[in-house]
């Protein structure tokens, strides 16, 4: 069980909790590959997915995870409904809370918004990404993918490359990988590095070859053009030339280094298309697979927490 009612970020998780989630996810990964994918961890429970930001991958991953655990799953497209009518985030949350959902999966364009919402509801809230702050299930699924490929999740050299500044995935990942005692390098143009990030126990370089030197894991990030207000890089072709991952740059990493990407990819911008599809190096498809397993594990553990609450506190 987890120490918290909600899963709002990696920041609040202990090493032991991370391991607990990954161990359970491992079981669900196995189950997901079998013909009998259903279990009853969430049976009788209602899961609502509230996405204030467009998402296909994460939302469907949470939806499949909930359904496989036996929950009633509802998807709400928030941009279409209450926001346009001027309802505040807190009112939306309170309204929904009155319908007694058990699990609320929330994505919001503003940092801290999911935590704000979590304060106002009785159910368990899962952060599916808030602004540039955190995306905990993505970091957990990345961790599981790494652990399965490398056999361990400590003392690895991991290069996180590209658009760090606009990435919640990078923040959650560097927190998680740091907690598990790995060596984390951030590689990318200085214009895409968050300010003061060098004070957080990571190595920073703008040289892709130096950054990849001896790396066990190469994690590419998407260039988040939609979050930029212009002028971070001169052009996509120059970006690809200096920081796009191709076979030549990857040759500086360890021979058995794996290539990761949280998706969706900009082929030919941050990663070479052929490399992304290379089943010997790229674990991008496995990341998607582990996403479902990790989300099942996280929701299962939060549901156990809910069921363990004394009568009257919850509901």
């Amino acid at each position, binding site marked *: 069980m987890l120490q918290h009612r909600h899963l709002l970020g990696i920041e609040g998780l202990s090493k032991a909790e991370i391991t607990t989630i990954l161990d359970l996810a491992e079981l669900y990964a196995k189950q997901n590959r079998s013909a009998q994918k259903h279990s009853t961890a969430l049976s009788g429970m209602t899961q609502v997915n509230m996405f204030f930001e467009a998402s296909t991958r994460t939302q469907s991953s949470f939806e499949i995870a909930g359904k496989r655990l036996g929950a009633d799953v509802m998807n709400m497209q928030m941009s279409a409904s209450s926001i346009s009518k001027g309802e505040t985030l807190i009112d939306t949350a309170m309204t929904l809370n009155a319908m007694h959902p058990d699990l609320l999966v929330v994505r919001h364009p*503003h940092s*801290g918004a999911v935590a704000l919402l979590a304060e106002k509801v009785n159910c368990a809230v899962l952060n599916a990404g808030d602004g540039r702050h955190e995306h905990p299930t993505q970091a957990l699924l990345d961790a599981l993918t790494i652990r399965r490929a490398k056999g361990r999740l400590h003392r690895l050299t991991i290069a996180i490359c590209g658009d760090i500044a606009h990435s919640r995935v990078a*923040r959650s990942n560097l927190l998680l990988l740091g907690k598990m005692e790995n060596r984390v390098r951030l590689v990318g143009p200085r214009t895409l590095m968050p300010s*003061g990030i060098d004070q957080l126990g990571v190595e920073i370089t703008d040289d892709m070859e130096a950054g990849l030197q001896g790396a066990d894991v190469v994690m590419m990030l998407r260039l988040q053009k939609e979050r930029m207000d212009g002028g971070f890089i001169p052009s996509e072709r120059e970006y690809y030339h200096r920081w796009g991952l191709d076979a030549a740059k990857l040759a500086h990493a360890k021979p058995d280094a794996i290539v990761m990407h949280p998706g969706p990819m900009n082929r030919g911008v941050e990663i070479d298309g052929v490399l992304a599809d290379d089943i010997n190096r790229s674990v991008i498809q496995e990341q998607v697979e582990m996403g479902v397993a990790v989300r099942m594990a996280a929701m299962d553990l939060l549901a156990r927490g809910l069921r363990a609450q004394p009568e009257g506190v919850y509901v």
Partner: protein
Amino acid sequence: MTTLTNARLIDPESGAITLGGVRLEDGVIVEILPEGAEGIDCGGKCLAPGIIDIGVKIGEPGERHKESFRTAGRSAAAGGITTMVTRPDTTPAIDSPELLDFFSRRAADLAPVNVLPMAALTKGRDGAEMTEISFLRDAGAVAFTDGDRPLQNPKTLQRALTYAADLGALVMAHPQEPTLSKGACATAGPLASLMGLPAVSPMAERIQLERDMALVEMTGARYHADQITTAAALPTLERAKKAGLKVSAGVSAHHLTLNQFDIEGYRTFFKLKPPLRTEDDRLAVVDAVQSGLIDIICSMHTPQDEESKRLPFEEAASGAVGLETLLPACMQLVHAGHLTLPELFRALALNPAKLLGLEAGRLAVGAPADLILFDPDKPFVLNRTKLHSKSKNTPYDLRRMEGVVLQTYVAGAQVFPLDD
């Protein structure tokens, strides 16, 4: 006639604290009394000139649900502020003599303390055309400012400063480079990066101040920077003062007592403009107040209703109420040994009075009897619901503070506490 005796007199002009009293008649101080005179016994508490707070936002016109003259005035009286110098960033902005006249009449009818209005520097505060500075001054505007909207176009500012300089009018600016600080709600650094908040480098303050100093040098205008909050901007200010430019600067009590870590947990009551700074910056600015490089401490009273604060951090309104917490917040600096009481009242009363050419702000014969009696040591826990202000958005809720205003006098009449 009122005689107050057996008080510790805080005289910011001489820097002395003496035991004695004052005799008030016809709204002015007519005599400074030695120890042991007959009169109302102040029990050894501190008697100081009333606070002159430059940069108070009142919700009238336009946002009376956030603050009215009446509630702001009562809040000021309770906080020991005897003169509120108000901001023109209302809806609509105070940018015409007619509006200013309406504003002043409402203020005189409803506020128990002095209200001196500032007027907009440009029409509609949109940074394009200067307002009728001369007419507005005749109507009572004591300074000209576009509030927290920095004037982006140097040509407009150059003309406004030149025009104001001819009239001897004071211009108050918000020195934050607007393109860098656009959308920012935290100070750039590891904390903002981890929280994923749009942030601005502290250099944005220095860049704008440097530009403004060049324009002041060019035009000879009188210039007041509303808030200087970073160590990086201090050398610029010092250089300008040494060069003899007519420049002064203020800082809010919030920036003197809080730092960037207070926004952790996305606490929107700590979302200010400019954003809270690092602890190094805070200490540098406290030192600058002590040395006199920064002239004035203000509350930057900015009332916001609950709705505008109960939002994700980026979307939430910025600003905090500060009238009633100004003195106890500043007393933290006194108790920590950063400032003496006379130094504090130099920044709270004497310097603002000098800047605006007022007789107040002093404990001297002939000065207006705008006085406060306070207990510098009395501890309390702040309860925001008890504030007189209509809006309760204080960052100090539940904070342990010291320093309680016992009585406030405006022109010799007691305005706090009132028995009603």
